[in-house]
C-alpha cells in the first residue's frame, strides 16, 4: 500500500515496512508466530498490534505534524482494519467484524469474505514455513528463511498465496506471500507502466499514477528521466527490485466477435462493442466482450517507484 496502486502488482512502502519488521532472527519470528497463534486462539486481530512490537513505531510513518504528508502509523493501521478487513472499533477500543455486516467487506468491490482470517492464517503459515516448524533439519537452523510480501489486484475474491522454495546449494530458502484481492473503491490502473509524473499522487488528489520517485527506472533509458538525477544503481546489482515487463502502452480496440469470421480495428467494430443493442441484421447476435485491450509499442522493462508500489534498490523505506 503506497500512495495508491497504479500497477497490478505492488509491494510499496507499507508491505516493505511489514517485511522489515517481520523478518529477523529465529527468536523474532518465533515471537511473531506466538502472537499469531494467540490471536488465532482468541480469534482476535491482536497480532496486528503485538506481532511485531516495533512495527508501528517505524520512522517511515508520518509524524502527524503539519507539513508531513506521510500517513501516520495509526492511520495506516486503521486503514488495514477498516478497508481491508472491514472491521470496526467498539467503545472499548476492541476491533472486530462490523455489526451488522455490510453487504461487502471493507472497501472491496463485489466481495464479502473474512479477509482478516485469510491474512492471519496465511501469515502464520508463512512464519511456520520460514522457521521450518516441524521440520527435522530446519527447525534447529539459527536463521529462518526470509519472507516477502506482494499485493496482486484484481481477482474475483480474496486469496493469499504462500509460496516457498529452497535455494539450491544453500541452507536457505524464501517464503513469498501474495495477497490477491478484489478491486477496491477508487481503484484505477495505469495504461502505461512508464512514469511521466514526479509524484504518484498528483497535487489535488485524483488517481495514482506511475511516478519517477525512488527508485523508478525504465531499463535501457539513459540518462535518467529526471535531469541531474543519477541512476540509483546498476539494475542487476539492486538488492531489491520489482520489474514489470509489458507493452509501453495499452489501448482499447474493437473487433467483431467470435463466429463472424471477420476481424479488424475499425470504428465500426468498436461501435459494435460500445453499443451492443444494434441495429443488426437478423441472426447477427454476438456476445459482448466488454473492453478489449491491445498492447502497443515496444516491450519495456520498468521498475516502479516505491511510492507507486515498487521497492527501493536497497530495501529501505
Amino acid at each position: 500500500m503506497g500512495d495508491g496502486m497504479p500497477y497490478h502488482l505492488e509491494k510499496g512502502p507499507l508491505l516493505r515496512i511489514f517485511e522489515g519488521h517481520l523478518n529477523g532472527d529465529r527468536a523474532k519470528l518465533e515471537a511473531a508466530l506466538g502472537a499469531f497463534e494467540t490471536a488465532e486462539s482468541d480469534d482476535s486481530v491482536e497480532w496486528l498490534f503485538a506481532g511485531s512490537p516495533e512495527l508501528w513505531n517505524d520512522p517511515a510513518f508520518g509524524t502527524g505534524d503539519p507539513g508531513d504528508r506521510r500517513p501516520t502509523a495509526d492511520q495506516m493501521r486503521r486503514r488495514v482494519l477498516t478497508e481491508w478487513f472491514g472491521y470496526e472499533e467498539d467503545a472499548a477500543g476492541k476491533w472486530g467484524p462490523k455489526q451488522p455486516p455490510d453487504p461487502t467487506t471493507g472497501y472491496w468491490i463485489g466481495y464479502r469474505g473474512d479477509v482478516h482470517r485469510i491474512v492471519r492464517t496465511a501469515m502464520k503459515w508463512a512464519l511456520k514455513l520460514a522457521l521450518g516448524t516441524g521440520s527435522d533439519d530446519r527447525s534447529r537452523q539459527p536463521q529462518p528463511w526470509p519472507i516477502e510480501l506482494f499485493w496482486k489486484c484484481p481477482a474475483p475474491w480474496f486469496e493469499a498465496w504462500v509460496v516457498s522454495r529452497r535455494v539450491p546449494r544453500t541452507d536457505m530458502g524464501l517464503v513469498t506471500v501474495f495477497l490477491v484481492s478484489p478491486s477496491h473503491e477508487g481503484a484505477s490502473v495505469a495504461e502505461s507502466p512508464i512514469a511521466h509524473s514526479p509524484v504518484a499522487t498528483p497535487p489535488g488528489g485524483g488517481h495514482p499514477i506511475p511516478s519517477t520517485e525512488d527508485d523508478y527506472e525504465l531499463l535501457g533509458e539513459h540518462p535518467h528521466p529526471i535531469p541531474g538525477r543519477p541512476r540509483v544503481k546498476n539494475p542487476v546489482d539492486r538488492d531489491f527490485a520489482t520489474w514489470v515487463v509489458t507493452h509501453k502502452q495499452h489501448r482499447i480496440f474493437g473487433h467483431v466477435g467470435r463466429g463472424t469470421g471477420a476481424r479488424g480495428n475499425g470504428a465500426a467494430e468498436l461501435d459494435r462493442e460500445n453499443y451492443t443493442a444494434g441495429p443488426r441484421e437478423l441472426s447477427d447476435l454476438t456476445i459482448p466482450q466488454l473492453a478489449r485491450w491491445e498492447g502497443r509499442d515496444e516491450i519495456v522493462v520498468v521498475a516502479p517507484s516505491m511510492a507507486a508500489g515498487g521497492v527501493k534498490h536497497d530495501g529501505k523505506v
Partner: protein
Amino acid sequence: MPEEPERTPAPWELDFPPEEVEFVRSRLDDPAELIARLRREGDFAIELARADTRPILVSWFRQMGIERREGGWSHDPERTGPIGPSAVGVEWNWVGKHDENDKEGRTFNDIAPSGRSVTVHGFTLMGAEDGRFMVRRYIDWAGLFAQLGLSLNWRTPVASEPPDRDATEDEEPGA
C-alpha cells in the same frame, strides 16, 4: 446454364415457418410491407423475434427447465406489440443451463460449462433503418454475466500522465 451454388440459410430461417421465410427474405431491403404485417400480426412478430435469437441462444445454453420454469424461449404478451409509427417490439426470455451443448459441443463464449441455470432477458425492436429491415436487441448482458459468476475487474484504466497533461493532450488541434 451453370447451377446456382446452394445458399446456406441464415440461422433464423431454420427456426422460422418455412412457408414464411421467403416472404421475410424478399422484403429485407424494402421492409414496409414486412413491418406492417409484423405490427398487424402479433404471432408473426413473436415468431420472427424468436427465430432471430433462439438458434443462437440454444448454441450457448442448453434448453432446460429450472426451478419449475419451463426451459426455452418465451415472450411476454404484456410487453409485445407495435411501437411508435413504424416498429414492433417483443419482450422475451430464455431459460436454460450453461451446460455443454449436446449437439455442437459449444457453449457461451467457449467458456467452461458451469452448470448454472440462466435466464436471459431481452427485448427485440424490429423496424426499418436506412431503408433496410434491422433489429435492435436490448439484452440484459450484465444480468446474464452475473448469473454465470463473471465479474468486472473494476479497475479503471487511466493514463499514466498527470491529469493536467491529459487535458492538454485531449484538446482538439486549434481548440
